[in-house]
């Protein structure tokens, strides 16, 4: 289909309302939502899960399924109303004029078709190109998305590519017919941080190259800051604030936007001096929205009789460029006032060493043939010479991307696996060879774990109270059923959940609430060491702060040792006392939080720091994009594990990096770095993140 020329905005959404119809009721998902995307502009759509941002994207694609319907407003694409178009016209538009990139790359590609054929389909269907011409275009496109060896890639099936490569193919497919509008729905959520940084840089560059307008949907404010020109903040189905990135980030005029920024760990936040401010209350369910302002019940500036008396409309903020807010009181609020000074808490002094690991190694043997057990065995080195100690009341963060061995480490510590070599000392007792079945109840209840996925951490078939009571039973707490019940209710108090929740089933709880139950369960036996495996990464931004603070509070009271596994460096900087960075089974850097977050860095830490998007316009970052993927642990590179992606490799004389594993060097004050770079070279390293003077 020929592309038509149009001078106005590429996409105009005007007062759009979308509802889903279930057998019980109508559920309004999006209400009175307007946004305009100009040619060549990138607009970010930000909000927590359930706020309706993905529904807007599906509405633009006119793909709401059987239950969804547009109940008001219009969506105009290049001046034409998408709602008035026939199926045939829409089919011509989708994939050619409007393209969409989804979160899960594997789910967007057809696993039974070679990548090349899938790419070629796009121009062949939409432009009637010959197979030869389409192949050439596909080849050029794959080169554009910077994949190595494009011919081999075109000839492979999706499962033969890594997650990052798959997402690049999806991007290539979306750009195949040079669409005017690209919708990206959380395109990097499923990827590792360093891969995410590379993909985001690519999307930005290609968008500029082809002049594509973008609608970028994300929950990550930092990512939106890096990619977009304008931003639209959504809350509970409505746009609450809209404007240019600069205006909204620095001069926000809606209490929700402000609360959102105060709840994310920006550089400068500190768990003792400047703790995060969680947004009180819960996100309202679509059918339980309050009258008037949706954010009213959770807002600090709420005024009864005014905020809940009338529908609130978008009002322009004067003096800024197309900056609007959905707040009645924005002229009266003192936006520059700092948040109420929170109760400062004492910096906890770490106590004696409770856990000590020395030269811990964990290898897996993978047999080539499973049935007969013969054949060559290959060794996966999941953990390589891990040494560290953790003190009472201390938070040690373990940072690394998927495949770095942090989960294996947790399994060995918990006793689900036994170590191949080295020692784990708990209170001076060796436990590395004792599987969990043989550990005594005391040891088991001493080391407990909080899991990542809130939707998976509780057994969906058992009530919340029962699950906590089961843990109490197993740990031998309380002599009678009644005593355990009392203790269970106290644990619910501890994690700040109402006692009625004891009788609820897990599906009746929100993600943050489930995570709280998971924490209560972990502390049931009076745990002294808690391994928290990304406990907040799957939660919404506003809930993350509350859950993280809860963990810290319980830690402070019980002087628990917290081993915090994470890939999100912002939250690590906020709550960790010491940090350990892992790459491919090796500890590449370890030190106090300040030491790790300032130079000298290990080259991997440097790249990791640069990759993490920070939602602060004052922060200037050095841009370091790592090429390629994390190598497989079955076939690790010789010498330094990071040598395949390291950008400073040339600075080391000879082939040292390729041949020898670097020694652990103590730089200063217990700061350890595993690198061949010379000491004075390390001393000359520049900081990755600088905070510009205000």
């Amino acid at each position, binding site marked *: 289909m020929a592309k038509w020329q149009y001078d106005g905005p590429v996409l105009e959404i005007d007062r759009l309302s979308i509802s889903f119809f279930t057998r019980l009721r109508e559920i309004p998902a999006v209400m009175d939502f307007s946004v305009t995307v100009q040619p060549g502009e990138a607009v970010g759509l930000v909000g927590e899960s359930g706020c309706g941002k993905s529904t807007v994207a599906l509405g633009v694609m006119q793909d709401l399924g059987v239950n969804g319907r547009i109940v008001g407003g219009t969506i105009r694409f290049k001046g034409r109303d998408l709602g008035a178009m026939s199926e045939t016209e829409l089919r011509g538009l989708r994939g050619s004029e409007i393209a969409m990139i989804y979160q899960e790359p594997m789910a967007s590609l057809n696993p039974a078709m070679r990548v090349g054929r899938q790419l070629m389909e796009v121009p062949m269907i939409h432009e009637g190109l010959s197979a030869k011409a389409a192949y050439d275009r596909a080849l050029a496109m794959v080169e554009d998305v910077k994949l190595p060896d494009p011919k081999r890639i075109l000839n492979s099936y999706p499962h033969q590519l890594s997650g990052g490569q798959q997402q690049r193919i999806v991007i290539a497919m979306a750009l195949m017919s040079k669409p005017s509008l690209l919708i990206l729905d959380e395109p990097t959520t499923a990827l590792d941080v360093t891969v995410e940084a590379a993909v985001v840089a690519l999307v930005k560059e290609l968008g500029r190259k082809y002049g594509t307008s973008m609608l970028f949907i994300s929950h990550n404010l930092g990512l939106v800051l890096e990619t977009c020109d304008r931003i639209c903040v959504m809350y509970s189905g409505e746009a609450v604030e809209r404007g240019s990135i600069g205006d909204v980030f620095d001069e926000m005029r809606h209490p929700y936007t402000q609360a959102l920024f105060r709840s994310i760990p920006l550089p400068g936040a500190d768990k003792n001096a400047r703790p995060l401010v969680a947004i009180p209350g819960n996100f309202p369910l679509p059918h339980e929205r309050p009258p008037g302002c949706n954010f009213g019940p959770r807002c600090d500036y709420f005024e009864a009789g005014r905020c809940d008396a009338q529908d609130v409309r978008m009002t322009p903020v004067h003096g800024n460029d197309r900056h609007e807010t959905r707040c009645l009181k924005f002229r009266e609020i003192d936006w520059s006032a700092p948040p109420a000074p929170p109760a400062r808490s004492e910096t906890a002094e770490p106590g004696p060493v409770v856990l000590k690991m020395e030269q811990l190694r964990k290898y897996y043997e993978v047999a080539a043939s499973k049935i007969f057990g013969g054949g060559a065995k290959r060794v996966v080195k999941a953990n390589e010479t891990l040494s560290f100690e953790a003190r009472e009341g201390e938070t040690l963060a373990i940072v690394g991307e998927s495949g770095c061995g942090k989960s294996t480490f947790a399994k060995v510590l918990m006793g689900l696996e036994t170590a191949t070599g080295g020692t784990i000392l708990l209170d001076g007792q060796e436990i590395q060879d004792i599987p969990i079945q043989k550990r005594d109840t005391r040891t088991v209840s001493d080391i407990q*774990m909080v899991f990542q996925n809130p939707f998976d951490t509780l057994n969906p078939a058992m009530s919340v109270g029962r699950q906590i009571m089961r843990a109490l039973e197993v740990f031998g707490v309380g002599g009678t059923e009644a005593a355990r019940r009392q203790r269970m209710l106290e644990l619910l108090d501890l994690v700040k959940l109402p006692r009625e929740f004891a009788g609820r089933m897990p599906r009746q709880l929100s993600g943050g609430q489930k995570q709280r139950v998971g924490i209560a369960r972990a502390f049931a036996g009076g745990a002294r060491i808690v391994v928290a495996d990304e406990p907040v990464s799957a939660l919404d931004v506003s809930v993350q702060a509350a859950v993280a603070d809860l963990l810290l509070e319980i830690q402070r009271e019980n002087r628990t040792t917290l081993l915090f596994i994470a890939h999100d460096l912002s939250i690590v900087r906020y709550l960790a006392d010491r940090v350990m960075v892992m790459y491919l089974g090796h500890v590449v850097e370890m030190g106090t939080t300040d030491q790790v977050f300032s130079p000298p860095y290990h080259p991997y830490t440097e790249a990791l720091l640069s990759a993490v998007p920070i939602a602060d316009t004052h922060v200037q970052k050095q841009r370091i994009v790592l090429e390629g993927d994390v190598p497989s642990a079955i076939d690790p590179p010789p010498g330094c594990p990071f040598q395949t992606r390291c950008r400073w490799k040339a600075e080391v004389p000879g082939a040292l990096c390729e041949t020898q594993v670097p020694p652990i060097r103590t730089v200063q004050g217990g700061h350890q770095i595993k690198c061949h770079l010379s000491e004075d070279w390390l001393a000359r390293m520049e900081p990755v993140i600088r905070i510009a003077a205000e």
Partner: protein
Amino acid sequence: MEPLTWTGAIGPYLNPALGLAVAVLALSILTHAGLAIARLGGVARPGAGAAGSHAAAAAGRVTRWSLFAVLALIVIYLVAGIVAPVEAKGIIGRISTRFLPVWIALAATFALSIAFKRRLGLYGNLFDNRVGMIGFALVMFWVYSALFADVIVTHDPVGDVISGMKNKAPGTPLRSPGEGVYGYYLLGGDALARDVFSRMVAGARVVLTIAPAATLFAFMVGITLGVPAGYLGGRFDTALSFVANLVLAFPVILLFFLLVTPEIIAMGVPKYMAEVLFLFPVVFLVILWNSRFHTRPMTRNIHVGLTVLIGGWLYLGLAWDADPLGLVSIPGGVLIVFVSVVFVNSPTVFRIVRGLTLDIRTRDYVAAAQTRGEGAWYIMLWEILPNARGPLLVDFCLRIGYTTILLGTLGFFGLGLPPDSPDWGTSINAGRGLLQFFPFPPLVPAVAIMSLVLGLNLLADGLREESLKD
């Protein structure tokens, strides 16, 4: 007495109406299909779209209304049959009257379920699903028929052999009915002059006792072996999966023939199998209670003790025929049928359960249970199994259907159940010789099997759909 007609006195009025409605229905469906084909071929002509879709919409409306009319007429036949005076009733009317307790029970079930459907969980959601409701109605029709069989039957299904009623058409009156004897063979007589209608109703009782019970045992065996195979993996899993494949690869019918061969019975093979298979439910329950309550010895002892006591008593009676109280026993033929059905069904259940376990054991709540030092059996039976219940429930419904067909097949080959048993497979077998001349004796039980299995399949479909929603 005159033989009965199918519809009785209301026939002359309703039959033409029914004929008309059916004809319209058939015509409109044909038109619909024709239009759809025309539309597929006519993509190239853009102008024809609107006119075509109008016609299609009209045809769709006619189809809906005529279908509604047909269904309404069928209901009128049944209702009118009940309320009409005795002499005006046809065969349908009389059958409908006999089934009166079933109708009342069905109506009560549906009325109560629909009234409280929001509070009944998955079972309540079933009543939002048309397909599921139809399936549930068909299944419950046969369940209530089996329950009320004693009231519904007109004659003794096995003992009443009335002279002169051999191979008679439906609605034939008895020559000299005695006092208090029902005057007609409603669905005719079979080759041994027994009442086909009564045998159908009594057959429901036989089928609906054996099929669900056998399926339940097959599930017990499949679960007790499948969950550990999936959870523990390794050699144990390899060996069990191999045995399961072996059983599945063995021709079922041949297996049945082997099991009923007198020499094999004399060797005691079916008895040994029963001794092993019937042990599974008891073992399953003991492990279930022990893993749950081992931290509370008193509660554990009560639960395990009761299970061993009751389970052991039933086990002695069923498997060894050695009930000390003399209450529980199972006839030899039925035992063989039971054992064979359990034996061929459990490997399939095993594989389903194993697959579900492989999926669920990767969840975090399983890891959480492991990290607090729970035993393997607790994790398998209390963390994994309850979360596999959805797919298992659907499969249970489907499997009762397969088992019903399997029972029919067994009966058809004359295996297991005694030759005069009223179950549907045996009846079909008895009637098949004269099928060409007297179709009713085998046709009636065949339709009964079909409707029950259809109902179970629809019910499973409905449950699956509803459990996926929300």
